């Protein structure tokens, strides 16, 4: 029942809660097994776009499978909308787009959506209208009668996203939604996600494309070898920049020398001068540039990217 509200579901803010979620894959004969996820604590709030990042084998997909009840935890527990994983009332509020979606290739795009739509409490007319809207939204209206076995990877991703949205989910779980797509396809999927985010959907985005996560997500959890290495907003995760960068025109040689004496890095080229200086001396540098008749073109304080922070975490872990 897509129209079921969060309040009616007994939720106060948290859509996903996990405490000490642990998964050890054991072979048939037992043994110590492989630790895929280690005591993960998660709290995804309503309306939030939450990213889960990590290299291959870090436990991202295991985490999603646990939340969907496809596998069972070795330890800990998770709740969706305040209910146990597997509760059908919670399941009605979820949309899930699997990584590299595999669907029944003997169906057409429209038939696949109709098949999935029948699992929800939608009348025939509602199903039809919803399918039409979604096909239009993901740009697949013209390919609706084509068999899935003839779809390209990008088309399957789009139809995968459409099936995840059939019930107008309050929680959308996306596993590598742009994986394997060309730049245009990836951009279109990202635009769709941004659109859904603006409509207030709670989204869990699992990806190893850090740039994508950085731009789309409000908060991010970084997993590595099954352990949660960090979790927070970009502000919390990315350390503040230690430098400011200025690009100015008409900075004479004398001013450049003064800047260098202040500890700034100065690089003149093609009439423009690029200056990098410590944040503490930013105002001083700016005053000096402008006092000498320099015209400021650009002033920014570049932060490290999520990718840089992530790689430094991985390096620390390896050491």
């Amino acid at each position, binding site marked *: 029942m897509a129209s079921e509200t969060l309040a009616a579901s007994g939720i106060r803010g948290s859509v996903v809660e996990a405490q000490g979620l642990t998964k050890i894959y054991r072979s048939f004969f037992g043994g110590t097994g492989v630790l895929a996820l280690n005591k993960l604590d998660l709290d995804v709030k309503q309306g939030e776009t939450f990213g889960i990042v990590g290299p291959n084998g870090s436990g991202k997909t295991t985490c999603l499978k646990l939340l969907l009840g*496809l*596998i069972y935890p070795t330890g800990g527990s998770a709740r969706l909308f305040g209910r146990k994983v597997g509760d059908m009332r919670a399941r009605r509020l979820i949309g899930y787009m*699997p990584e590299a979606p595999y669907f029944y290739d003997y169906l057409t795009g429209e038939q696949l959506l109709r098949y999935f739509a029948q699992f929800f409490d939608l009348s025939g007319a509602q199903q039809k209208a919803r399918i039409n809207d979604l096909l239009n939204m993901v740009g697949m209206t013209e390919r609706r009668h084509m068999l899935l076995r003839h779809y390209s990877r990008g088309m399957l991703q789009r139809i995968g996203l459409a099936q995840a949205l059939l019930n107008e989910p309050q929680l959308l779980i996306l596993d590598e939604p742009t994986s394997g797509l060309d730049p245009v396809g990836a951009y279109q999927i990202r635009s769709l996600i941004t659109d859904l985010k603006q409509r207030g959907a709670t989204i869990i985005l699992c990806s190893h494309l850090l740039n994508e996560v950085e731009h789309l997500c409000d908060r991010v959890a970084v997993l590595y070898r099954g352990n949660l290495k960090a979790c927070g907003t970009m502000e919390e995760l990315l350390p503040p920049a230690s430098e400011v960068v200025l690009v100015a025109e008409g900075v004479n040689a004398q001013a450049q020398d003064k800047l260098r004496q202040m500890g700034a890095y100065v690089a003149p080229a093609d009439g423009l001068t690029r200056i990098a200086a410590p944040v503490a001396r930013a105002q001083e540098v700016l005053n000096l540039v402008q006092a000498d008749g320099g015209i400021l073109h650009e002033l920014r304080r570049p932060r490290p990217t999520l990718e840089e922070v992530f790689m430094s975490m991985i390096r620390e872990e390896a050491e």
Partner: protein
Amino acid sequence: MRSIFVIARNTVADALSRIVLQIILIFGLLFLVIGFFFTFMTPGEEDKMLKDLGLTAITVFGLVMAIFMGVSLIQPEVERRTVYAVLAKPVRRLEFMLGKYLGAVLVLLLSVAIMGVVLVGALYLKQQVWNPGLLVALIGTFFSLMIMTALVMMISTFASSLMAVVCGFLFWSIGYSQIYIKQLAEHADNQASKYLLVVMNTILPNFSTLDIRPAVVDGAIIPMGLIAWMVAYGLLYTTIVIALAAVLFYEREL
């Protein structure tokens, strides 16, 4: 409940689109038609030969279909990960499994019905007589196939497809040899062997119970009690196997 029918319908569509099943059915029908033209080899007993050949063909081709269907219900869905998107919807694992099984049973029913109509039609053309015993024999065959599909599906919830196929043929062989297994158990000297044979005789299906081909071929009258017993046995055995399969599938990590 609705999910079960939605999944069953999709399973039927899947099965009908599979060229392998179409070929098995076509071969079954061809076998029946060819048999019709070879009755001259048993002068005076053409109808017996036609009935025997026809019912055997339906059983054998039905068996191949049942094993193929049983194997393709759960394991390929897990291997191809098509099950993920379905179980992420408000669909219970039990509903998914029952829907798949129901779809397979409908396909088998359709196949047995098509081959049965051809057999009955051929006999009617030959003798201008309607033999109701054939229908009972077909019901017995259908229940055997239902049990086989359930058994193979149950095996495939935890083992590979190849293992499920091997087990399927093994069950079929044992299922038709239960009378000998019982005799062996009675005369076994070793206590362990005796125990093993008794367990096999008790747990594994007895397809001879559902096989009334000899009686139908001989034109014997089939008592109503036997039909009721066949139906009860088939339904009970299938229910037990499906319940076991449901537990195994529920426990399975996907």
